């Protein structure tokens, strides 16, 4: 359909570029632009305000919070912290979440890369079909098998351990998918052949050549996997019984029952669980957005 118009395009594009510096908006367009920016800013305020008020309220006393809205911090941060610590060991929850999220992320990265490497560079029979299976695994939500998984963990005496939370990350379909695309584009088969000729073992090639070259892709997926595991609520809720094993989301959800009368402490506990993710996002937003997007796009 477009073919007959396409030849005209290059000239047109040049013309537009030449015209652009002199381009002036008409008064109607200026008003339109102002409304557009106001809309975008309003939406940004809606997105950020809950976090902002959460941080502000974490520094205010319950009396102050009851009195009304404030956009400037109060002086009760330390008091709120002491109240919070009296009935909840939030740093223990923090540590527990790390104990689950760090090994999960590492396993997903290592085995995800290994699996992706096989799909990218080895022409074994069934490569295509099995890769479709990997894509299919991305579509299955954990909730569907949670009862069977729990019963199985009971039988294997793995309930109330971190193993049931960590081990499944060996099979993270999205990581395999992303890294296969990454390796298809960035991993030179000639380099691998050269290493083979030099007598490197297959696993040695993976460790010494494939992993280092794929590191930027692995980092992208690892940030996402870390956040995903960090945020996971249902599986730890089902699997963990001991309060000192609870991960952060479980502890935070118990805030409701714990600080009924102390709003400042509630806000502070929620803030402690959310602020690290916000910091991670500020630091890695480009990686994160690249990783999120890649799942949906072909190339």
């Amino acid at each position, binding site marked *: 359909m477009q073919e007959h118009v396409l030849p005209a395009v290059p000239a047109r594009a040049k013309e537009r570029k030449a015209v652009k510096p002199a381009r002036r908006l008409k008064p109607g367009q200026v008003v339109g632009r102002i409304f*557009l920016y106001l809309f975008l800013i309003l939406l940004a305020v809606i997105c950020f305000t809950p976090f902002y008020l959460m941080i502000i309220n974490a520094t205010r006393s319950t009396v102050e919070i009851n009195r009304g809205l404030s956009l400037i911090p109060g002086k009760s941060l330390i008091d709120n912290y002491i109240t919070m610590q009296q009935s909840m060991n939030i740093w223990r929850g923090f540590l527990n979440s790390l104990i689950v999220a760090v090994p999960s992320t590492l396993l997903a990265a290592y085995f995800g890369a290994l699996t992706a490497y096989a799909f990218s560079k*080895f022409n074994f029979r069934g490569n295509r079909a*099995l890769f479709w299976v990997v894509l299919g695994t991305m579509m299955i939500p954990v909730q569907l098998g949670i009862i069977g998984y729990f019963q199985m963990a009971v039988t294997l005496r793995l309930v109330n351990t971190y193993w049931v939370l960590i081990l499944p990350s060996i099979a993270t379909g999205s990581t395999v998918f992303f890294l296969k695309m990454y390796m298809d584009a960035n991993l030179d088969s000639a380099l691998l052949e050269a290493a083979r000729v030099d007598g490197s073992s297959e696993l040695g090639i993976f460790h010494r050549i494939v992993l280092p070259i794929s590191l930027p892709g692995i980092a992208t997926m690892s940030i996402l996997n870390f956040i995903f595991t960090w945020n996971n609520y249902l599986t730890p809720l089902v699997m963990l019984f001991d309060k000192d094993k609870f991960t952060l989301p479980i502890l935070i959800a118990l805030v409701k029952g714990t600080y009924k009368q102390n709003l400042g402490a509630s806000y502070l506990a929620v803030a402690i669980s959310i602020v690290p993710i916000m910091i991670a996002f500020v630091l890695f937003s480009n990686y994160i957005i690249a990783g999120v997007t890649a799942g949906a796009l072909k190339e």
Partner: protein
Amino acid sequence: MRKKENYGYLFIAPFFIVFILLQLYPIIYTFYLSFTNLSSANPGGEWVGWANYARLLTDQFFHKSIVNTWRIWIMNFIPQLIFAVMLAAILTRARIRGASIFRGIYFLPNLVTAASVGILFNVMLGWQSGTINQILVALGIIDEANKIHFLASGAWTSTFVSLILWWMWFGHSMILFMAAMVAVPQEYYDAAAVDGAGAWQSFWKITLPLIRPIMIYVLVTSLIGGLNNFDIPFVIGEGQNLGTGGPEKSILTMVMHMYNLAFTAGRQRGYAAAIAVILFVMVLIFSLIIFKLMTRREEMAGRVLPRP
């Protein structure tokens, strides 16, 4: 050469072993359990045939949970889709200053722990000292004496769960649409401009048809997530208890109902497993319907999912 290719099987083996043992088998086992009466009373779990499914037909809470789950998802998804497509078009084509900053801020709520978000809004939706009521008073929308007891109303609670999901997800969908729109060649728009098409026409005739595969992806993944909705409705209800389902049970979702049956008093795991199976079937049927309705035949083969 044959020896080398065998390493391919070796390298994918850990993934598939773990997938089969820890993901696929639990689902199959859940199917099996749905035909037993496994519970605190029957820890052995005898075979009961279709009894659990027959019971689902008369379970008022289950019926309610299906309606709730769909209502909460649809009320979040429609505005989510509209905002996501509109914002993606604005941020990719309208030469906005600071577009990447807007993109980041809109996306931020998506990354935050859903359970924490639920608790945050539980506190903010409070009656006399809740932040949202205070904002409404400050803006002059309501007066001090008429603060709304949001979490005591089934309709408000359900609406806010949808609103929170919208808030968490429109930025995510927007990013996907932006990636798809950036990939549309500028030449198409230039050519359309030569033919006299305005921005609005270009959007309908060029942008929308070309982002169709991403649209399907967003719809299917959002539907799957929406049918499995748990974290926020589970924690947001008023009072100390988790998973109450809110006033009039208006935010009792299917997964919540399943969790409550399987992991609280009575531990009716066989019966709860039947809900998981229904959920599975629902996910499957509606995903297939969407693919069928929205996908042209040539797209089925290669565009929606990547060619391996």
